[in-house]
């Protein structure tokens, strides 16, 4: 991991380079999660904390101070999520060493996370290719043409699949109370 990098260092064409942040900070976040939890937290829950950490950072990308160390933000978010997980599981665990004023400026996006978690569970049964197409289109911002090329399928096939899964996700989002 690159030490004490600021958020500013991860801006490319006015967009946050979340891919690079994930790449650089995964070992750091994994260490915090492993050191901050015990066996009462399952691997799946730890994985949820891990993915939510980066998700929350991405959701807050336009409101954070870009000159502050990214380590502080990420550590703050991760520890908050660990604390929240223990609270939900009605377990007590000592994370009293956590002091981070910066976290006050972070929106933990509880409602969004719950909703997205529900949708994730509902779309678990989808085919890998459908999930990959959605990720490439919405996360990696690839064009239909490039996705078709990458997956070696027709543009029409990409469009059809994308349309169907988008419709399904929107339906699940709407069922979730939006």
């Amino acid at each position, binding site marked *: 991991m690159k030490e004490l990098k600021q958020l500013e260092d991860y801006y490319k064409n006015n967009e946050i380079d979340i891919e690079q942040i994930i790449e650089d900070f995964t070992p750091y976040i994994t260490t915090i999660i492993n050191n901050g939890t015990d066996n009462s937290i399952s691997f799946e829950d730890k994985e949820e904390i891990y993915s939510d950490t980066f998700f929350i950072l991405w959701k807050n990308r336009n409101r954070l101070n870009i000159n502050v160390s990214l380590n502080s933000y990420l550590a703050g978010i991760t520890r908050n999520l660990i604390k929240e997980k223990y609270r939900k599981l009605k377990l007590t665990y000592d994370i009293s060493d956590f002091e981070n004023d910066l976290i006050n400026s972070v929106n933990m996006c509880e409602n969004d996370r719950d*909703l*997205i978690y529900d949708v994730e569970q509902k779309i678990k049964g989808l085919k890998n290719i459908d999930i990959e197409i*959605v*990720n490439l289109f919405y996360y990696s911002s690839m064009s239909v043409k490039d996705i078709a090329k990458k997956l070696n399928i027709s543009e029409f096939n990409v*469009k059809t699949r994308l349309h169907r899964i988008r419709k399904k996700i929107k339906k699940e*989002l709407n069922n979730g109370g939006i």
Partner: protein
Amino acid sequence: MDFDKNKIKTKIAISKIKEENDIVMENKTKGILKTAATALAGVILSTGVVFAGTMVYENIWKTPEKIELSSGDFEEITKITEESKKENMSEEKAKEIAINKLNEIQFNSNIVGTNHYKEYDSNKIWYRFDTEDNYEISIDGQTGEFYDIWNHNKDIQDLNKYITVEEAIETANKYYKLFGFKEDEYEISKIHSNNKSGNDTDPGFKIDIEYCKKYGNLENYYERISIAVESKNKDIDYFRVVNIPFDNNEVVKTEQEAIELALNEDKKIETNKVESTQAKLMVVKMNADAYNRINNKEKYYEAMQTPNYPNEERDYYKVDDKVRKAWVVVITYEDNYGEDTRKRYTEGKYSYFVDATTGEIIGGHPLDYIYSESKR
């Protein structure tokens, strides 16, 4: 154990869909289109002949039909209609073909689900059947030909396990034979290894192998078999057969004649001064790109250069599925675009497809088709 990074991607993707949905809900707009109408735009179907040398050849280019599409409800447009059913074989017949193919390749042929759809711009139905073992097989509803089979089993990819290109070819060849193709019918034309090094000859976690039919030195991309082999089980990820009839037409026009024909066509519109030309004999699929550019150059480039240009404003044409030998003539224009890189990378070059037999312009491609095909 490592955490799955894809979960983050999916969360962000769902969140973006949510944002998109929120905007739609706020604006309370509903893009509704129930039908895709096909209209003839002043069409004159030409059925003439063309003289090439001392022989007379029938024209193959016909003025294409303009198709009106809209950005409406895609789900509706791709629904199978009673009308489309009349132009395709029945689902039962397609299912029988799928089961026979699955048996032939020794796969579990128990069908447990379907995912059929109609093409958005024609009445062709693609029959897709899901098997008990989680494979998806597609059958062309009009020709009854097998198109592809996908392995949809979860966790078939292990990004950390690599196989060599040789191992992948061995598996691909096994399936090539299993699907009943003759040994010298197709040749391997391209290999792409998915790996961290970015080198196609290095081992990878998924290796794509493409076989093409060859005519002398010419590769025909429209008669091809694509196979992807995954590393985890050293098994196929997908197997696809593309088979668009090829005319294998005679090469009558010379390279120089083709360049002159392309330049004459290009004179019909205003462009920058021609700086250079390049030509290569290739197998191409007829299209309406050059026709569209010649007939409405301003709109053609505006659609290309404007972000989020509305689909309903674009011009779409229906052209026969014809695959021909053609001279691909790439024209490079003088570069006076200055800082306008958008123009440079859209208008800086154009490729014409000049039919090798009749000399007709049977298609085109924005920029350099020879280069882009070499990178395919």
